[in-house]
């Protein structure tokens, strides 16, 4: 029989055309699959490297190191009591800074030919004088001393050292001239100007359009933290309570079905619709203030609830019925069995789900745009609970806000803010994974 088939189809060791086609199709299909996997992983790598690569610059800032003698005649002409000090305006400090820069330049023998004093002082950040003033107001004992002060360089100068600004673009730019860039280069060579780590990026408030070099994430981080607090305090108890009811007590009836359908639908509602809800109910109807963390927190709570409920129910379901039976068997009431025995065992799963829900909420942007969190906020909100009602920003909204500004320096800061956001997310997810690994039980 083998002979007969062999004579028709040829040897088994020699694949015929049809087999070859089938094998080729198999190989192609495999290659498509592998290609899809590689493509998705590459997309991830490309996404992360592009954002991270753009953002690292935001953590380093060009500073000009100055030795400043705080001459009492300039900074404290009318004595050093706080009220008199507060009367000295930023302009006075600005003049002091300008003098110091020029003195420093001549001391180091740097050639400033062809540049006016105004050109040189424009190389400093517009915020530098205000920084110095704040420093003196915070510590009046500095007056009369010589201090080392790191003044931020103007955003364009900073951009030159980070490759954002070139000689060609500077020639067209009214805010910076090629001569200033050349001088900045000479200053760097003389050690006067350098790129230094900038903690202000994490702690300072947002800054106006013209001062990208001092814009920071302080208010946004605080606002996000406030919102996460509200979400945690509201969503965890509400979500756990709802899950316990649905998983352990709810009778099978229309109402239970309605609740279940609602929860699964809410999980799929686009986030921006929650923003509309927040605007219509919390701001217009209940009269809560715009841009306040309380409104953001409430909206994010409603968004996070389905996530927490779904994971809590899974965690409760994973606790074997024998635990409940044993508790009921020794005379516990149903409530006691659940609160004393089932809930503690389900807790790691619940916390994991909660942290993942919080991480989702932390990155959510669209609903916050609608409740006014895009507003420009420079003042830090007060301590909670009053601070929950003060205007604040939020990390992802700050990113969006910066991308809408004209100066490309803000793009770098937006990418830097993304890095901060991702660090928070990675940390939260790591905690969730550790919790799961450490405490999860297999029954």
């Amino acid at each position, binding site marked *: 029989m083998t002979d007969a088939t062999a004579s028709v189809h040829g040897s088994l060791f020699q694949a015929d055309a049809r087999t070859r086609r089938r094998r080729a199709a198999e190989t192609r299909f495999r290659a498509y699959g592998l290609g899809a996997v590689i*493509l*998705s992983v590459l997309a991830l790598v490309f996404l992360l490297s592009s954002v991270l690569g753009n953002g690292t610059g935001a953590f380093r800032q060009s500073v000009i190191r100055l030795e400043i003698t705080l001459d009492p005649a300039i900074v404290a002409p009318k004595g050093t009591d706080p009220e008199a000090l507060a009367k000295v305006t930023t302009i006075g400090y600005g003049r002091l800074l300008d003098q110091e820069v020029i003195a420093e330049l001549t001391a180091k023998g740097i050639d400033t030919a062809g540049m006016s004093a105004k050109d040189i002082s424009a190389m400093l950040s517009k915020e530098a004088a205000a920084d110095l003033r704040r420093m003196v107001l915070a510590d009046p004992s500095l007056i009369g001393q010589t201090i080392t002060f790191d003044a931020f360089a103007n955003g364009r100068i900073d951009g030159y050292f980070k490759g954002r600004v070139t000689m060609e673009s500077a020639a067209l730019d009214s805010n910076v001239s090629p001569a200033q860039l050349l001088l900045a280069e000479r200053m760097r060579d003389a050690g006067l100007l350098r790129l230094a780590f900038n903690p202000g990026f994490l702690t300072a408030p947002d800054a106006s359009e013209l001062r990208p070099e001092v814009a920071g994430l302080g208010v946004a981080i605080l606002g996000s933290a406030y919102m996460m607090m509200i979400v945690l305090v509201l969503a965890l108890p509400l979500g756990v*309570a709802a899950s316990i009811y649905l998983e352990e007590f709810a009778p099978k009836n229309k109402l239970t079905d309605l609740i279940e359908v609602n929860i699964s639908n809410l999980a*799929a509602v686009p986030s921006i619709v929650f923003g509309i809800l927040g605007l219509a109910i919390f701001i217009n109807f209940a009269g809560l203030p715009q841009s306040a963390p309380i409104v953001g927190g409430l909206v994010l709570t409603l968004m996070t609830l389905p996530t927490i409920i779904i994971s809590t129910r899974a965690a409760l379901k994973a606790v074997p019925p024998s635990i409940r039976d044993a508790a009921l068997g020794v005379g516990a009431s149903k409530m006691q069995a659940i609160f004393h025995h089932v809930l503690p065992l389900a807790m790691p799963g619940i916390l994991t789900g909660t942290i993942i829900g919080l991480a989702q909420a932390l990155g959510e942007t669209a609903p916050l745009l609608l409740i006014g969190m895009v507003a420009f906020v420079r003042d830090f909100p007060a301590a909670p609970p009053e601070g929950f009602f003060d205007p604040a920003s939020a990390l992802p909204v700050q990113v969006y806000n910066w991308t809408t500004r004209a100066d490309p320096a803000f793009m770098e800061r937006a990418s830097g803010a993304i890095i901060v956001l991702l660090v928070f997310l990675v940390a939260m997810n790591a905690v969730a994974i550790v919790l799961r690994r450490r405490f999860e039980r297999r029954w």
Partner: protein
Amino acid sequence: MSVGILILIVLCIGIAGFVLGRQRALSRAAAEGRRLHSLPSYYGQSVLLFATVPALLLLGGWLLVQPMAIEGRAAAHITQADIPEGSSHDLVMADVRRIAGGLAALKAQGNLSDDDLARMRADLTDIRGRLASAGIAVGDTVKPNVFEAAKALAAAQTLSHMLMTVAVLAASAIGAAIAFLRIRPEARARNVVEQFILALLIGSSMVAILTTAGIVLSLLFETIHFFQIYPAREFFLSLTWNPQFRGGSELGIWPLLWGTLYISFIALLVSVPIGLLAAIYLSEYAGKKLRAFAKPAIEILAGIPTIVYGLFALITVGPMLRDWIAQPMGFGESSSSVLTAGLVMGIMLIPFVSSLSDDIINAVPQAMRDGSYGLGANQSETIRQVILPAALPGVVGAVLLAASRAIGETMIVVMGAGAAARLNLNPFEAMTTITVKIVSQLTGDTEFASPETLVAFALGLTLFVFTLGLNVLALYIVRKYREQYE
């Protein structure tokens, strides 16, 4: 008294009630020589619950309703003549609120007594200066009626706040007292507490229904409001979107709907093949090592916030597409385009499609694969002719869910797709979507009663109906056509 302190006081009453209630139960049991019905702490808990929960609910409800109730009274002071040209009632009321806040702040600082306030008149006193000293900046000079309204508002707020404090404390004390007096050794405290907790659990699960109701009602009411001032025919049939904040806008939904569907289509074109093939490869072909690495890596994509994708579209993908493809080939000059948003959104949806398909493929029983191999089919033939048909309803469901995600996505299109409402086929041109227009119509200082703002609610309702419809359809398909394996 601030709300925070009020809450603390209520909690203190509750804790004191717990301790006292427990002691009372124990001492009465000892005095009467009876055994308690429940564990002693249940008696304490009953007092704690009755003292805190009703009082806190009252507090929350009061805070929610108070602004509405008292602003009506203050608004009565404002006449049509007080509203300046180019302004609106809402803006004037915002001023009133700010001034009232300033007056309250002045009082809190002790710079303003009640008599002072009664004597203060807008046309005589320098209100601006006084308010500025409290850190409240007021635009121009304050009109008498506006100031009267602010005074009324401030007074009503103070009164309401006082009433609220009294009412909450009374509720807490009465609740505690009732529960406390009910403590007897034979009282079934555990049952009472458990009933109370069960009621709380039920209440918590009602939040989901309330949220849905809130969404539907707020969208519906404002949409009806919109259609009262703008013809529904125009909205549904007009082909131009051209909002003018001076009136005379054309607000046709078609350009937005077209942009939304076009971008979603491109996103699905990217994500469905890649996601599906990746899921097939990872569940059928890949070795353990590759799976252990690639699966979490793809799932990381799902955990990245959409703002990150938006920035990626804005600073990387958009300029790249423009410089490498659109400009050299003369398709367009814009870096934000349908293709940019679609591609990036496609990447975002890959893990969504792949993890859903993965579950579905894994649910196909091994026996079907074995049967197919037994008939001589190789692996890819088995996948294409046995597994995929068996998994088809689930895959269709996954695609529909992904489509609903794509339609509702906001940040990627806000940052990647542009703002120009166009009906066009060129994927390298900027177009806009429903979500982008909801954001742009509702952010910034907008007047609430204009059709240009209210249209956002109609768009929101459209979006809600669309996504809900897709989700329901997806669930229906999965349920109806799912093959039941034993």
